[in-house]
């Protein structure tokens, strides 16, 4: 799954640590998501969607491999 967290973070001019604080997770989690190493829960996805004020579908995109 791809995500545009890093792009959104740049738009809002937030550091990983600042975003982590807003989303109530650790900085490691933000970092792992940006690197595509961790797929967040629905709750965290919705939190990010609210923080960035974009629909979840715009923040996350399925890839071919997600259907396998």
């Amino acid at each position, binding site marked *: 799954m791809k995500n545009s967290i890093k792009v959104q973070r740049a738009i809002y001019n937030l*550091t990983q640590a600042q975003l982590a604080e807003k989303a109530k997770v*650790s900085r*490691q*989690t933000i*970092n*792992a998501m940006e690197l595509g190493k961790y797929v*967040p*829960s629905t709750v*965290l996805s919705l939190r990010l969607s609210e923080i960035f004020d974009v629909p979840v579908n715009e923040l996350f995109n399925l890839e071919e491999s997600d259907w396998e």
Partner: protein
Amino acid sequence: MKTNYLLPHRFKKVGWLLFIPSAILGLFMLIYDWTPDFLNVNVFGIFIDEVVGTKKYFGIVSNNILNEILGVLVIISGLMIAFSKERMEDELISKIRLQSLVWATYWNYGILILAFLFVYDLSFFWVMIFNMFTVLIFFIIKFNWSLMNLNKALTYEE
């Protein structure tokens, strides 16, 4: 969803403070067969089968309680270290916790199976003693190792 059966973060430090001395004393006790006289007491037992003596259910038996004290301390403090929340216990940490627990369980029983097959008699008694604690110890090592790798992977570009 909020139930995770974990202890508050502060228990972790207490766990380490109890675990290290108890584990060291425990090893010392095992190696040197240490049974201080003042800890020889009569205790209540459910199954009693003395080497020389009676075989009965429920009764009083004379025993050196050092191994009981240290065993309980090592297990309780080990549980505190293993299952206290991290400072920021979020969903990624919980996932790593679960993976580490599965890993530790596999290794613990993998080693136990090998010991079943290749270790006999009194040597197996030693395996059983250590196996009481290894699942916790394997978990603590694997979990902290994974957390360390997670921190190492932190990229510093913002």
